[in-house]
């Protein structure tokens, strides 16, 4: 162990300087940081829309904004958060940065394609932001026809163009990951020695490759229908609006797994690292990721129980939705079993990981309520649904993302963030999140519908609780933004392996050199070799 920890003299951040060296880089690590900047900006734009919504819902009357404005707010919030934050968040930032390092490669298989993905993504997000500024779109992020294709007068087509372009960026990232994981693993790194983070991104990439083109063509059809006044989904011309819903959810349900599988990968890394223990049931963990990806493609009809789908189709979709809960539950049980008799420490990334397990469990179990035909009819289009998917997407994906950002922050920047502030914000995010969204389960169960900006007076107490929670949650997101930016420059150097973790990414310097390793590593053992005597701790602190 070295007495003084220093930043290496040359690394990927200081090999070159200037705007050009970033905008024309093909280094996966720099591209990851470009993505980080873009999606952080978009996260706060989408968050601002949520702030206005929660402010409006403080009182039963519609006094802050009008119905039309409120419709645009929840649409912008949904479109930006889903297509421009959650879907790219973990893959495009952490996946981009870590996958080549975790498999011992110098870069992704197609570095220039990777840079092109970021440009496409940025172009798509410019469309989304320009649309928001110019007057917005009011269809909801679901773009249901015939409202989106025939009736609304808002900016549907530019929004669709933005989503289409960003979708291609996602496809190219997924393609790059699949090819990289297949062809560029270091000597000795067999499939069952891969970190679960890599498995999770492999499964995610499969969903991206198979699902995204379908949403692209479906939304293009809506755009064509608007532009040419033809009736692809218009009942007046023999078109079928239900067909739109089928095609839309064929992508958009698996999209939930695009958002949550990478977070599961992150959590698997965090749980083992902070339990000092091998993951429980490695191959079950790997195969359950693949199982979720595969079964996830056959459950989309549970979004359409009240849409006029045949009752037999609904029964099958209900059953399959129960089935997809099994591999998800396997993951929760195995994380818990990994904790059992581990030497658990509660650093801030671990707090996020534990938060993920709890919140994802609540989100998953309420998903089973919604998959049951009878209950679903009672709570369809109520706040129960809103609460459920925010537990998955915010309680799951965002907690995983923030946990991952903290865990790999010393690797990315070479410096250690202030642990006290990190623990503080992890705790208030957890508290604020639950205060925001748990009351919404109750509101939904009591019958408050989603997408309204006014409501009967008896719902006010729960809505005020929710808005109060949202302000705590918002604070919880701003605090890390401040101390992480500070820590990038001023915090103490972290050293190559501050957590004493296993995995190839901890064997190179922090920050890594441009080509990640001085020489290509050779892998001789499993990835979670914790508990092997002293070895894993030798270059930690």
């Amino acid at each position, binding site marked *: 162990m070295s007495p003084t920890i220093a930043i290496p003299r040359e690394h990927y951040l200081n090999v070159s300087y200037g705007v050009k060296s970033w905008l024309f880089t093909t280094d996966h690590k720099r591209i990851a940081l470009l993505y980080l900047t873009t999606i952080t900006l978009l996260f706060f734009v989408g968050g601002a829309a949520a702030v206005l919504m929660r402010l409006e819902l403080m009182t039963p009357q519609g006094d802050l904004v009008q119905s039309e404005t409120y419709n645009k707010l929840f649409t912008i919030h949904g479109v930006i958060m889903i297509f421009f934050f959650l879907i790219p968040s973990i893959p495009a930032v952490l996946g981009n940065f870590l996958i080549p390092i975790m498999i011992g490669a110098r870069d992704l298989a197609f570095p220039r394609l990777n840079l092109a993905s970021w440009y496409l993504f940025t172009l798509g997000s410019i469309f989304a932001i320009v649309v928001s500024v110019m007057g917005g779109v009011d269809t909801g992020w679901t773009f249901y026809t015939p409202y989106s294709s025939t009736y609304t007068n808002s900016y549907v087509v530019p929004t669709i163009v933005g989503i289409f372009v960003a979708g291609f960026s996602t496809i190219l990232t997924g393609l790059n990951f699949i090819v990289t994981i297949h062809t560029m693993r270091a000597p000795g790194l067999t499939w069952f020695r891969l970190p679960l983070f890599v498995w999770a991104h492999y499964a995610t990439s499969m969903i991206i490759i198979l699902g995204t*083109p379908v949403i692209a063509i479906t939304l293009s059809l809506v755009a064509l229908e608007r532009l040419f006044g033809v009736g692809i989904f218009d009942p007046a011309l023999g078109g079928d609006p239900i067909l739109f819903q089928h095609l839309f959810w064929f992508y958009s349900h698996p999209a939930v797994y695009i958002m949550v599988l990478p977070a599961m990968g992150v959590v698997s890394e965090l749980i083992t690292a902070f339990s000092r223990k091998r993951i429980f049931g490695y191959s079950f963990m790997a195969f359950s990721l693949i199982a979720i990806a595969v079964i996830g493609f056959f459950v989309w009809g549970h979004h359409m129980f009240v849409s006029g789908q045949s009752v037999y189709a609904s029964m099958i979709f209900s059953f399959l939705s129960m089935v997809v809960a099994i591999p998800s539950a396997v993951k929760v049980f195995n994380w818990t079993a990994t904790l059992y008799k581990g030497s658990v420490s509660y650093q801030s990334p671990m707090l996020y990981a534990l938060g993920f397990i709890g919140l994802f469990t609540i989100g998953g179990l309420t998903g089973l309520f919604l998959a049951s035909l009878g209950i679903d009819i009672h709570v369809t289009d109520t706040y129960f649904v809103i609460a459920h998917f925010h537990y998955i997407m915010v309680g799951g994906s965002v907690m995983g993302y923030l946990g991952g950002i903290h865990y790999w922050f010393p690797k990315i920047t070479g410096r250690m963030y202030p642990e006290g502030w990190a623990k503080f914000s992890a705790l208030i995010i957890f508290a604020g999140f639950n205060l925001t969204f748990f009351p919404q389960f109750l509101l939904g169960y009591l019958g408050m519908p989603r997408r309204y900006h006014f409501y009967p007076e008896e719902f006010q107490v729960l809505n005020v609780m929710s808005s109060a929670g949202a302000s705590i949650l918002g604070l919880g997101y701003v605090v890390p933004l401040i101390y992480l930016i500070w820590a990038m420059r001023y915090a103490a150097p972290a050293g190559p392996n501050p957590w004493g973790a296993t995995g190839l990414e901890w064997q190179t310097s922090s920050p890594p050199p441009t080509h990640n390793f001085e020489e290509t590593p050779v892998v001789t053992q499993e990835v979670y070799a914790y508990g092997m005597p002293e070895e894993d701790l030798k270059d930690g602190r």
Partner: protein
Amino acid sequence: MEGNGALAEQFDDLAQQHEAASLGMWVFLVTEILFFGGLFAGYTVYRAAYSEAFREASHHLDLLLGSINTAVLITSSLTMALAVHNAQEGRRRALVVFLLLTMIVGAVFLGIKVTEYTHKYEQDLVPGIRFAYGGPHPGQVQLFLIFYFIMTSLHALHLTIGIGLLGVLAFLAWRGHFSADYYAPVETSGLYWHFIDIVWIFLFPLLYLIGTH
């Protein structure tokens, strides 16, 4: 993917680079299948619901030109396969010739397609732009023609991109870029070209032949 037969720095050797390029194209083609798949799914739903109207509408397509175009496109697959073969053998002249031939045959396909589109315009059968139909089921006939135009024009767009791609390859091949050791771009572009042909092999019977029996 790097030019001049050189090995890109992220790969260890040409074999690894070749494998990555080839797998990358296959994965991309899977995406393309799903991209067209959404349209095929929509087509199938409506055809099942309105089979009579779809058969009737299919009669308004030009079976002769469609058949000629099918033959033309299959010919282009042959010349493309020969281009890949000659690239593997390292024959520069033959490679350039077959790439140019493939481009020409592809352009002939597009020319015939444009002729068909023009006829449709003259017959007032272009939904959204110029459409007037006096027979039974006008709405459903229009639906068929919407799918006809979207699917064939998307196919034609892919073909146009393919011709541009082969143009770049022909130029590079003429400059001596490729060799018997390094021909991955020709091979992967060949995969793309054959994919376009296969899409047409499905489009042709679904659009032109459903009214014939």
